[in-house]
């Protein structure tokens, strides 16, 4: 199946303020419990999110938290990994355990009739993991295999190298899944130590969406999640990343490419910055919509790339602003030159009044789709806690969008998007493109890395 466009826009929005089915309780253990009641379908969504993640992986052991999340699925002293999978499938459930920069999370969905058994299983996995050496060997093997597979996915390769280049030595620049070297270095004692570091009820928020009353949810949580460890959460300050000066380029060299993948960007905003929402609005007008300037100029007017978009990342510390295209190998340098010019012009002048109004209108009116199902509403509330967003971030978002004018949008772009401090990653056949990239104005470095060095 082929589709017209694949770019998706990630943006925050507002939770419902009327006819709201939202509840906020606290378990007997003092864990925040967020509930979204909905009778739309007989499914219960569950999320247990611990608010520390891969930024706390030791240097040289990148991928440790991700491996821990996989090991939590490998069973308990009473349950083998295959028993866990059988139980999940038999219940009519899906279970996912994963880790990101700022969290380790268990999420799942189950048909309502089996909710008790599902909560029980999650509780057992989190409180009594087996951590068998053979399971770790298995998980390391699977992780190394998925790193090998990454070499076939040019877009993911681009993203991995772009993050590393743009964030440098900052923890956000390290690969969440690790490298082949760091994954091999992980030992069972590291897994156990990371479990003690991340899994604590004092760092946990629980969310449940579906056709259950608050009372019933609280009862289930008290019964099945009350034996979680209650160690003091780890306190490690994550500094704000900074973008070095110059246009730094990395070419990921892959043979026989007829098409390139291009990511260009720099550090963006922190959610607590005063110009955070103005930057989101300004970015929406620049590359966050199909009718936005970047997409119109790159794709619609010139047909240079199938996709062209830009986005603002949000996390606990300052995240990246980035723009993405994938032009043909012959058009790549022309497309990059155009993107850099569009960006420089936009940073210098800001959006037009028409562009601004269109972006604001989109952000305000599309909020209905951010909250049209119970689990999306739950996601927003958990997002606020996990990413340490200002209290009421989603509730107040639309009012803040309404308040953005041309001056504030322009100021946010001018202050945050420094065109003299950009990182660029191009997945391409290096010999075809490196000389032209070196000739771009303002280039401070061009490095070439082989595509299969992961």
């Amino acid at each position, binding site marked *: *199946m*082929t*589709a*017209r*466009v694949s770019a998706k826009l990630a943006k925050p929005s507002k939770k419902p303020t009327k006819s709201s089915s939202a509840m906020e309780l606290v378990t007997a253990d003092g864990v925040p419990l967020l509930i979204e009641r*909905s009778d*739309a*379908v*007989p*499914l219960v969504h569950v999320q247990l999110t611990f608010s520390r993640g891969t930024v706390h992986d030791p240097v040289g052991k990148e991928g440790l938290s991700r491996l821990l999340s996989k090991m939590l699925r490998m069973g308990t002293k009473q349950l083998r*990994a*295959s028993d866990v*999978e*059988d139980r*999940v*499938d*038999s*219940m*009519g*459930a899906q279970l996912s355990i994963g880790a990101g920069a700022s969290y380790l999370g268990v999420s799942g*969905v189950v*048909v309502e009739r089996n909710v008790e058994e599902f909560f029980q299983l999650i509780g057992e996995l989190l409180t009594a993991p087996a951590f068998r050496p053979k399971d770790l060997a*298995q998980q390391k093997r*699977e992780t190394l*295999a*998925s790193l*090998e*597979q990454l*070499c*076939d996915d*040019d877009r993911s390769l681009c993203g991995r190298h772009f993050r590393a280049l743009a964030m440098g030595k900052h923890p956000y620049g390290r690969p969440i899944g690790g490298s082949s070297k760091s994954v091999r270095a992980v030992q069972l004692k590291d897994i156990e130590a990371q479990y003690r570091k991340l899994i604590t009820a004092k760092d946990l928020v629980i969310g449940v969406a579906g056709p259950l009353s608050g009372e019933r949810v609280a009862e289930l949580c008290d019964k099945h999640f009350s034996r979680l460890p209650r160690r003091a959460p780890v306190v490690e300050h994550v500094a704000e990343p900074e973008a070095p000066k110059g246009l730094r380029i990395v070419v990921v060299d892959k*043979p*026989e*490419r*007829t*098409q390139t993948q291009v990511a260009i960007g720099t550090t963006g905003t922190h959610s607590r910055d005063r110009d955070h929402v103005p930057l989101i609005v300004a970015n929406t007008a620049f590359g966050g*919509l*199909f009718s936005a300037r970047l997409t119109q100029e790159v794709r*619609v*007017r*010139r*047909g240079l*790339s*199938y996709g062209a978009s830009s986005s603002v990342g949000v996390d606990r510390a300052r995240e990246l602003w980035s723009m993405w295209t*994938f*032009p*043909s190998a012959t058009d790549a340098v022309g497309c990059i030159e155009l993107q850099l010019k569009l960006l420089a012009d936009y940073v210098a002048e800001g959006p037009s009044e028409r562009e601004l109004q*269109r972006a604001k*209108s*989109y952000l305000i*009116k*599309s*909020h*209905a*789709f951010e*909250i*049209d*199902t119970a*689990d999306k509403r739950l996601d927003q509330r958990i997002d606020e806690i996990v990413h340490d967003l200002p209290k009421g971030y989603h509730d107040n978002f639309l009012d803040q969008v309404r308040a953005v004018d041309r001056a504030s949008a322009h100021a946010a772009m001018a202050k945050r998007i420094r065109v003299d401090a950009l990182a660029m990653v191009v997945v391409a056949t290096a010999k075809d493109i490196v000389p032209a990239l070196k000739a771009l104005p303002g280039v401070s470095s061009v490095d070439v890395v082989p595509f*299969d060095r992961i």
Partner: protein
Amino acid sequence: LSTARPSVNPLQTVPFGTGLTLHRTTLRNGLKLLMLPDATAPVLSFHLWYGVGSRHAKAGKTGISHLFEHLMFNETRKLPAGELDRLIEARGGSTNASTWVDWTHYHTDLPAGELDFIARIEAERMHHLVLNDAALTSEKDVVMNERRFRVDDDIEGTVGEKLYSLAFTRHPYRIPTIGHMRDIKGFTRKDCEQFYKTYYAPNNATMIIAGDLKPKQALACIEKHFGKLKPARIPAPRKVVEPAQRAERTAELRWPTPTAKIVLGYKSPAFPDEAYGVLTVLNEALFGGRGSRMWRRLVHKTGLCADVQASPSPFADVGLYEMSFSLRQGAKVREVLRVVDEELRDIQRTPMSEAELSKVKNRLELGFLLGLESAYGKAEQAGFFEVVAGDATGLFTRLETYRTVTAKELQSCARTLLNKSTRTRVTVLPKGGRP
């Protein structure tokens, strides 16, 4: 007194699952209309399916359905280029489209209350699209870039194209939906105008609207915008019978990749067939998640593969049951094939246990319910069943098949379908590597 014949037939209602009602009618000009009122969220999901896909392409014109899908977002008589996207996005909506072998599907999500707007826009582009050379040139460039992205530089896309061109010798399912590069380059405005006149008409379209709507008012709105559009003479579908495959077909590709891959395609039942539902259950046992037979054996136990996936193609005619295996570095193709064949023989010889069958059915039921959570999901699923299987409520009949299928029926399905003689195999080897 008006003596004009109303241009719409009365609304019929049928239950849609346990909590919803499907309202349906056909306008006099042949436009099929289905509505699923659901006020759980203040949103609308508006879908329009045209009965044209890559199977309808003529020789030398592969990819025209898909290129045309792109062109439908350009200029109309009343809307200058780019205005369609601007208007939808300014209302907080999002729109997209997709093309496959049997159909082209346009969909727009909007806040509730915007039905009149989107109906006006869709009627406008169904009948008054403006085609010009500049837009065609630019869109051809975009589609050629999309082809590089999805096929030429993508191993999965390249293998998929090879698999279907090898498995089908006559049926147009052998044609890639995106089209061959030389054909995309060669399209003229005249080709596109002719295609538009031939296939874009109310009697070749099915509309599904789900979400916060009132059926009678919605019907009046659709009648207002579409009722006067004239039907076209849609060419009768070509009935092509694919000759029976009597021996395994194979191909080998070399690619810049560190790991080998194997893709298998067995001839599979057409989507409307009940046997397709049975195969879906069988597939879930073999490939559905980490507890499935193939995952356990190839990824977990032997470590021969990094990933295994499979699905039967949901086509109106006989398609392919596709299986793909991503090998670990150093794993041998013949060893993986040996294990795959062993697993397939086992499911053919030994009936599945009740516990395994129950597990598989529960997984499918969950997937079914998840697909119905949003207005988009409801409209998309109902529309797909209506267009490909001829009945939107067939969705629930299919669920019933999942629930009632027996171990014996699954065994019989495996015996009938999983024969090497109807198999096509494409192997990908790392450049410079050995099998």
